[in-house]
């Protein structure tokens, strides 16, 4: 584990309630969905994670509640480290605050998650379908597990 990542995790653990997981040398932090914006802002401004490579989600229905995990892949250009941020969202009217004001790259990525998982990003300026047709009828969110 790189020194920067170690410091980051120690410092964010001191200030927030987060769980940290390690698998194959990759570090994941779990945060509360309510705090996602402040947490991302903290990571970007205080810990140099200046790039958000990806936003995606995984559906754990029916074996887990809350059923969705939204996953952010952050990258720090300066320190050359990656960090995965996860948050758990309930399947009943799933919604989460947008981070597109913090990372512009999240704009389309969140639209894609909205399109394929049906998760609403509150505060998103342009929440339309991304890859599915606008007149799509059928299963509303195709990547949901049934």
């Amino acid at each position, binding site marked *: 584990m790189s020194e920067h990542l170690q410091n980051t995790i120690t410092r964010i653990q001191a200030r927030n309630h987060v769980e940290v997981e390690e*698998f194959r040398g990759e570090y994941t932090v779990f945060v509360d969905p309510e705090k996602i914006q402040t947490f991302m802002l903290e990571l970007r401004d205080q810990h140099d994670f*200046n790039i958000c490579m*990806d936003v*995606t989600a*995984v559906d754990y229905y029916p074996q887990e509640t809350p059923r969705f995990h939204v996953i952010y892949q952050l990258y720090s250009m300066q320190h050359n480290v990656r960090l995965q941020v996860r948050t758990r969202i309930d399947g009943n009217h799933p919604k989460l605050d947008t981070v597109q004001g913090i990372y*512009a790259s999240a704009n389309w990525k969140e639209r894609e998650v909205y399109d394929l998982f049906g998760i609403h990003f509150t505060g998103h300026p342009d929440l339309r379908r991304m*890859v599915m047709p606008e*007149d799509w009828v059928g299963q509303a969110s195709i*990547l949901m597990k049934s």
Partner: protein
Amino acid sequence: MTDIREVSVDELRHLVSDRAMSGETMLLNMGPQHPSTHGVLRLLLELDGEVVVNVIPDIGFLHTGVEKTAESKNYQQAEVMTDRLDYLNPMGNNLTYCLAVEKLTELDVPPRAQAIRVILAELQRISSHLLWLGTSALDLGAMSMFLYCFRERELVLNIFELVSGQRMMTTFIRPGGLWRDVPVEFEATVRDFLKAMPRRIKEYDDLLEKNEIFLDRTKGIGILTKEDCFQYGLSGPVIRGSGVAHDLRKKQPYSGYDLYDFDIPTHPEGDVYARYRVRVEEMTQSLRIIEQALNKLPYGPVRSNNRKYVPPPRSEIGVSMEALIHHFKLWTEGFTPPAGHVYVATESPRGELGVYMESDGTARPYRVHLVTPTFVNLQAVPVMSRKHYIADLIGIVGSIDIVLGDADR
């Protein structure tokens, strides 16, 4: 059959300025079928005369649901779909997918397979850049470039046909190594290519570097600053054309890229011309990598011996009972990696290609997500093209090297 819902202007109301509503600016639809969109990309343009006020890209015309389909295939089968994503970079896509599977299963890849992977991935980068150079120069009116670039691309595709029997959808790189060893003619064929290419690259330079029209239409067009690049998460030649020396082959080496000596070409201007220069110089660097890899190509097996994940060679099946059982098990059930999730990223010709893979301990991936460079880079088109002429928009869209199969998945 349900009626096709008509999408009204009101739904796009928040995307265009008030001037469009009063009729002061014009809304114009470009694509999805347009020769300069390299596939099926629709751009909704807001124009003030000939000047672009805003661009609203609309993608998804090639959406094939790869991520969903992968959930119902086993790990070997799902790899085949990665060829079809970014159809100009099948070797690189296979490589990224296999690296993700290998990280999940902790498979070791023999050194010979690593070196051949690097050679093939770099050949693929050259072929992709050649196609980009040909088509984007064609967009700007340089017709002959297209013919020359396709002539050289043919040489690379012939090498792929030689090693895998396929020209484009190769699926040659497999989890744990390669499908099979390369034939004996491989080295000589690649060396012929290495010998021919530097002169050809010089020819391209001669054709474009002194071409006033090409220079006028690329210099100072579509400028991206470093901050834009970070905000939009851009990568690859686009970010290197803005002066950021970021290349995953150097920064987070995979497949033994750290064994080779090569430079990262960067240009600080951030315009279409800088991106063109970066790609042309990258071709020369790729030739360097291929030459080094060929010179120290080790001998040995090309597949891992871990029979839990990698099928045994055909020659063993006839003489070994265990090999037959492994073969049968692997091709009927597939293999079962431990539960967990990994994110692997490689440097594709277009930028960072990432694979997020999650396993729940069964033979099928629980979730495969592909982080594709075109999807990310397309998002920056509006930033690049505002206040430029509509004719320059063609050059700007061309300069980020879009492959719509890559964006839509």
